[in-house]
């Protein structure tokens, strides 16, 4: 059973556009929702994270929107650049402890065309 569902699987956007990646979860015990960026041959790097007590968080060009009632969250990348081309993963972890690790979505392969 996939606990975090991510879409789309791949996405192509023109430079300057706003790619949007969506994730949905079922487990209401999740209380921390990070997004990771991964370049080929590298480990994932934390981009931005949100807790369910806020509906939106911005860091630079990256914004997370969070809808607690719908159990959905999304990543928006403003003024996208070719250097943003990478695979993006949403993730979730349960409140209280890290013992269950992060539960990851399957990833979105994003291409920003010049």
């Amino acid at each position, binding site marked *: 059973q996939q606990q975090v569902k*991510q879409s789309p699987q791949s996405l192509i956007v023109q430079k300057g556009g706003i790619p949007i990646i969506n994730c949905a979860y079922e487990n209401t015990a999740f*209380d*921390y929702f*990070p997004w*990771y960026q991964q370049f080929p*041959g*590298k*480990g*994932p*790097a*934390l981009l931005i*994270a949100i*807790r369910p007590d806020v509906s939106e968080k911005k860091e630079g060009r990256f914004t997370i929107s969070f809808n607690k009632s719908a159990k959905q969250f999304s990543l928006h990348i403003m003024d996208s650049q070719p250097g943003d081309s990478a695979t993006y*993963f949403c*993730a979730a*972890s*349960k*409140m*209280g*402890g*890290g*013992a*269950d*690790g*992060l*539960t*990851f*979505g*399957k*990833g979105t392969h994003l291409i920003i065309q010049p």
Partner: protein
Amino acid sequence: GAGVSQSPSNKVTEKGKDVELRCDPISGHTALYWYRQRLGQGLEFLIYFQGNSAPDKSGLPSDRFSAERTGESVSTLTIQRTQQEDSAVYLCASSLWGISNQPQHFGDGTRLSIL
């Protein structure tokens, strides 16, 4: 400062051999995690250490997998009698504490190929 370091970066071995993967976490990080990433897939959580204790080993895929950690330092993931299905990238992450909102910092992984 230094990030999470993993070695070897690549490992090719024959089916049936044992392999040992190493992770050096960020200094001072008490929590350490191992994940597996199959080609084109998301990361699959394997095991978590708080200090040198692993409270739950149920995430390990089979009894051929084992992991240890020395104090709050290096960890090793050992796979015995490797199978082709074990081919994947094995990623290690560390965080300051083992609580949900502590950022996990990843190494670049060990790419394991079983012939």
